[in-house]
């Protein structure tokens, strides 16, 4: 372990276990004798919304705080975030940053598509989780994959960390066993790379900007026009997508009434249709449809 902290930043979506994955990584290093620090960035968390967590590892107390600005490695639990600038997955990512991405796509294609500047390692951890655990939540295999790829800790330390951290999250019995098994598969599948050696970054000059005096009405934190939330697509929040089978649909409008996002609309003849830009994939509609006319399809990686 080095004197300068190694910095791993995790990106994913609310509900994927990003914070839990960060805890497993840091606990593994802690059990292996490192000084560690983990911190999630809390905001208006919602299932599917972008989530960030930071893990720093060193051989001595760590003076830095806050979200990592220039990571040695990033662990991306949902590849669709790479295409969303507001998720800032690539912030501070340079040629010497290692990117570990949970995706069925191969690494070179991913690298071209998102112009990733550094080395990319791709692994389809969601499919592994679906297969072994029965859920698409990739926190345990993603943490295990990263621990192995970055040479953070042994399997013994990782397994103990999984039992502690998943246990604290209320995961026990058969579910815990399957998660540990899934993590073991991911651990064995990972290439052993270690943290990349990064060149020291020059300190960027700070260019001062004088805060202007704006007319007070413009200087108030208010929004004067309605429906600005329509400008934002939440399509990428979905793991599964609902689709209405109009042959089975009885036009009862329950889905329209129960959609918590107002993303289901009725045509003039009462036929429901789903606004794919604003549907967050909660699947309340599919759960409530009395004729089971709403099917759920896994979102394909584009």
């Amino acid at each position, binding site marked *: 372990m080095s004197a300068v902290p190694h910095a791993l930043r995790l990106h994913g979506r609310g509900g994927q276990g990003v914070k839990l994955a960060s805890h497993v990584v840091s606990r593994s290093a802690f059990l292996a004798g490192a000084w560690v620090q983990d911190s999630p960035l809390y905001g208006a968390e919602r299932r599917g919304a972008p989530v960030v967590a930071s893990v720093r590892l060193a051989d001595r107390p760590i003076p830095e705080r806050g979200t990592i600005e220039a990571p040695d490695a990033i662990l991306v639990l949902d590849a669709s975030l790479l295409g969303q600038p507001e998720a800032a997955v690539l912030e501070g990512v340079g040629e010497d940053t290692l990117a570990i991405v949970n995706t069925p796509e191969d690494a070179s294609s991913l690298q071209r598509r998102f112009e990733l500047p550094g080395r990319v390692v791709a692994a389809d951890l969601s499919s592994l989780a679906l297969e072994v655990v029965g859920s698409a939540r990739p926190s345990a295999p993603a943490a295990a994959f990263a621990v192995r790829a970055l040479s953070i800790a042994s399997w013994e330390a990782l397994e103990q960390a999984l039992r502690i951290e998943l246990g604290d999250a209320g995961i026990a019995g058969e579910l815990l066993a399957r998660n540990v098994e899934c993590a073991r598969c991911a651990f064995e599948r990972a290439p052993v790379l270690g943290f990349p050696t990064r060149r020291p970054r020059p300190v960027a000059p700070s260019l001062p900007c004088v805060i202007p005096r704006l007319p007070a009405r413009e200087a*108030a934190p208010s929004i004067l026009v309605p429906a600005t939330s329509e400008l934002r697509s939440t399509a990428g929040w979905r793991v599964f997508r609902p689709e209405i089978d109009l042959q089975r649909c009885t036009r009862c409008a329950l889905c329209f009434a129960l959609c918590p996002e107002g993303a289901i609309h009725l045509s003039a003849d009462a036929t429901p249709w789903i606004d794919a830009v604003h549907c967050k994939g909660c699947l309340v509609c599919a759960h409530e449809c009395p004729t089971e006319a709403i099917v759920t399809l896994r979102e394909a990686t584009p």
Partner: protein
Amino acid sequence: MTRDLLTGNAAAAWGARLAEVDYVPAYPITPQTEIIETLAQFIGQGALDARLVTLDSEHSMLTAAGAAAAAGARVFTATSSQGLLYALEMLYTVAGWRVPLVLVNVSRGIAAPLTLEPDHDDVLAARDCGFVQIHAATAQEVLDSVLIAHRLSEDPAVLLPVLVNLDGFHLSFTREPVEIPDPNAARAFLPPRALQEASFGVSHGVAQGVAVLGGSAYSFFRYQMQRGAEAALERHEALVGEFEQRFGRRYGLVDARYLDDADYVLVMSNSLSGVGLAEVERLRAAGARVGLLRLRVIRPLPQRELRRLLLGRRAVGVIDQNLSVGKGGILFTEVASALAGPGAPALRSFVSGLGGRRFQSGEFDRMLASLQRAEQEGGSPEPELLWTDAEERRMRELLRVAGHVASQERNDAA
């Protein structure tokens, strides 16, 4: 224009009446209640066309005030002491909304121990919330400051709420002659509020005070409040010039007395600065070159004005009627920071007037002597807590009556 005897509270109510306010959210507390009662009377007589609503707390009162102001109403409200502290969360919130309103605070010491009498710990607890603060020394100044406060608050470059402070008892319940401006003259100075585009109504919604996760956006809006407060300093100078033209009374950011040749300056605020002025005149008659500076606009702090008037003096003493427990006088800290750098005079800190404590005349001689020593020995950050032998003896007696055995007696018994 008419001339009448008014208490400070009645003067505040008259200010709101002449400002032709639309809405008065209210919650009573001694020594502020008379303001609400007087306004209720004005409304009952048909002399003021406003809606007065009693709320369940000062917290709700400030929320209602801010919401009505955002909807375009001219809003006046008033509180004191514990009420101001209870509303403190909403003071920050409505200031952040950038809406104009006027809040009168009638200063009263904060419990515990409980008191009804004045000091400035209450109003200075609201120092950092984004409200402009004007501290008045006379009933006339209270009335005039309420009119000036509405103009300043509604200025498009400012749009910050304004607090007008007056001392409980010394001013709130004390009658003195006040010139009441003619309503037409007041209206010419303060026309009805221009409805702002950002005001919301039933037909157009506005999201006010939205969440801005991310430090840069939050900093931007907070920095803009600082810019608005800076604008308030400049706009105040223009407004008081116009006020003087119309009404013949001049109000500065500070009130400087006998400063032209003063080697030593005492800094005070609010109504007891009148006591200070009389003492300064007595000391000058005995040959001391001493002056008095009364802080009037305390937020934004007129730092440039303080530097202009105080740099190069031999020594400056700040008399605080407040106590930041564990530090000392709050205004001392403010003045000392404003004067930092070359040419700063030796500084001394005095605390008195807590819970309405009266100044002893001789204490001003002591403070002058302290400033003269400071000139030789240098300044000190340690506050001198004004207290006398007679007060000490009286307190010993009260403690004995309350069942506390003096430590000397305890030793004798043992």
